[in-house]
């Protein structure tokens, strides 16, 4: 699905990522863990094309997409749910969804599908997205990503700062997405959930992968050990 080959990237003169390589397999969750400042968000931004890598290559289904723009990556089947539940606050909930449904033949049907998945969004469809709660905005952000019918969805700490009742829902959704044929690249601080959901994982520290392996609860000790270094 997605392959990163020796990616180095950063902001201005500061290097953040140093030679990251990883393969996100088809139809499964790949979890990236690590402390704050490890470079996880920078990694996702680079994967999405918001940051150009200084060196290395990004391959999607074997095709080099290193120099493509973010919107072109979306057209190729990538979707991104950024950190912090960001939405277009001045657009209504419905407009936020319309924005990505525009130009798709099944746009209207996809929006209905999302309303079915997240009833709160239907209830508040005429409300400005800026007035939704954090959990609702995260649902909106995920719905916006799913409308584009991605093959790979990139989630940056999707449950951070969200009320517990919604966290469980989002976690369930992530697991079910991978079962419907989607690849998921998940950045997650919550090690327990990340390992339960993922087939493979990587732990990052200071812009490098320090540990990697197969997911599942059995890996929890080695991950905790890797993260406490």
């Amino acid at each position, binding site marked *: 699905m997605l392959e990163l080959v020796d990616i180095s990237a950063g902001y201005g003169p500061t290097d953040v990522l140093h030679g990251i390589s990883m393969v996100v397999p088809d139809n499964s969750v790949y979890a990236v863990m690590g402390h704050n400042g490890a470079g996880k968000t920078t990694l996702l931004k680079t994967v999405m094309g918001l940051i150009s890598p200084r060196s290395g290559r990004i391959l999607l289904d074997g095709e080099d997409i290193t120099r493509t723009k973010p*919107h072109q990556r979306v057209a190729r089947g990538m979707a991104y749910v950024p950190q912090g539940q960001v939405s277009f606050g001045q657009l209504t909930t419905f407009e936020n969804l319309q924005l990505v449904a525009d130009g798709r033949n099944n746009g209207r049907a996809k929006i209905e599908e999302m309303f079915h998945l997240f009833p709160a969004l239907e209830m508040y469809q005429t409300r400005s997205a800026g007035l939704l709660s954090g959990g609702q905005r995260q649902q909106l952000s995920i719905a916006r990503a799913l409308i584009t019918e991605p093959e790979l969805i990139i989630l940056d700490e999707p449950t951070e700062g969200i009320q517990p009742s919604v966290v469980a829902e989002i976690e369930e959704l992530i697991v079910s997405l991978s079962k419907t044929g989607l690849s998921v690249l998940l950045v997650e601080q919550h090690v327990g959930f990340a390992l339960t959901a993922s087939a493979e994982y990587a732990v990052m520290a200071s812009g490098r992968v320090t540990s990697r392996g197969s997911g599942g609860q059995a890996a929890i000790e080695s991950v905790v050990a890797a993260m406490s270094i």
Partner: protein
Amino acid sequence: MDVVVGQLFAGLSQGSILILIALGLALTFGQMGVINMAHGEFIMAGAYTAYVMQGILGDAGISLLIAIPMGFLIGGVMGVILEAVLIRHMYGRPLDTLLVTWGVSLILQQLARDIFGAPNVDVGSPSWLQGSVEVGGVALASARLFILALAIACVAALSAIIRFTSLGRRVRAVVQNRELAETVGISTRRTDRLTFFIGSGLAGVAGVALTLLGSTGPTLGTNYIVDAFLVVVVGGIGQIRGALIAAFVLGLLQSVFQYSTTASMAKVLLLIAIVIFLQVRPQGIFSVRTRSLA
């Protein structure tokens, strides 16, 4: 009573010209944050378009009706070229943009002098816009009524585009969060270009309208550009309805001040009024409110 109606109409008329000019700026300056000093020259280009059209077609009525969409097109294309060649390299650097587009403005003025000559030229108004319409005992100039109607039509069309079309949604999304817009699949480059096209095109339409009120010269746009920026700032950056209200309030104030003092004194009083207003409400008439910054 006659005086009140007369002044009210003069103010409305002044406001309708201001809004026609400021509407384009509300997009490029208000929404995109670009200080484009050459916006005034798109107005001039629209006015010369009307002049050229009349030269080709002869009939003042038909040429005016064709000049309006042509002025839009020419203003729009000039805007897109300026955006593609210069402005896009300077997003987020307002001072550089201001200086460079000011230079472009001077070049365009000289270009107009070279093509059309330094003296002003006149565009004849069609017979159906000469004379006036009597309302409540006050004669209202037909040309000014036409401009009022044109301004209303432009505001309505632009608001409808911004509110209800997919292009409008994309424009609003890019304005609010450029990075997020890219990552949900919107080509921000293409949206920028389209926004610039529409904003600059509206300046061209304003230029065509101005030919109905006076003669056309290379510095036509310079006379209006500062007022237009004032309208956008007073209205609240990025708010079309703010610009609309600001244009008519400023137009009315100007005509009231002008009636009770002189033209130059009116300008001074207006500027003082704006300075006081912005002290009290620096964000303009309307500002953006959301629960979070997102």
